[in-house]
């Protein structure tokens, strides 16, 4: 199913770099959102004193 190319190493390494950079760009906002939301929930709990609200 994987096509056999001439210069295969060059072609596949280029596409791999593309995939890695796209995955990295997709995951950074996702991870940052998770961290930020956890921080904000913690800050809110500290302000209100309702620690049970945290997830």
């Amino acid at each position: 199913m994987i096509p056999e190319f001439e210069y295969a190493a060059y072609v596949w390494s280029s596409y791999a770099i593309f995939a890695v950079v796209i995955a990295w760009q997709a995951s950074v906002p996702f991870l940052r959102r998770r961290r930020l939301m956890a921080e904000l929930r913690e800050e809110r709990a500290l302000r209100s004193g309702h620690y049970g609200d945290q997830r």
Partner: protein
Amino acid sequence: MSAFHTLKVGFHRLGSPPNFYRLCTRLAPWFWIGFVVTATVGLYQALYVVPPDYQQSDSYRILFIHVPSAWQALAGYAIMAVLAAIALIWRIRTTEILAMACAPVGAAFTLICLATGAIWGKPMWGTWWVWDARLTSMLILLFIYLGIMGLYSAFEDRRKGARVACILVLVGVVNIPIIQFSVEWWTTLHQGSTINLLGESTMDPSMLPPLIWMTIAVKLMFTAVMLQRASLDLIDQDRRKRWVDGVIGEQSS
């Protein structure tokens, strides 16, 4: 007149952080879906459908990611420059944040362009890198993107950082025509443009569809990440404000 008024009101509403946040978080998933669909079609065509080139054989398939990334690196900078100009002139904070959100994605596409170009260059030119005008000006673009990101994060006051970085964005605009016309102004190892949007392309028409699909895909991806990053920057800056409590409440429920 009423249409203009509606447009003006809509534009001003976008300046409101909660509205801007909601718009970003609602639109971003749709841009991601668009990216997945168009990239799947584009990659399938690039790897399975189009025939090998008669001179470069299969190595030319690198072009289907190299060229859209290069175009997006330049287009991303142009978008960032327009947003930076609006931010500096009208002092719209959401525009400032959007401009700053362009830099990391633009840098990522510049990096893809440089890396895939080097990988293509080795079998075709016999070298990974030459200091010709096109390659060097593209490397300078990467440094400008990194400089903007560094400057923005160097200030404790994010707004001050954004304003200083916006000035650097406008200074860096001078590099864009240099990149674009470098292959005409100087003798370069990098070839001249083979794809002309307004005239006839020297590229075989059978090779154009994957290039068009991948170009659309990277544009959608750029927009999705830009909106996501902007919404997160906004919420981070406004973490003490009341509207953010509402957002946390929505996320928790």
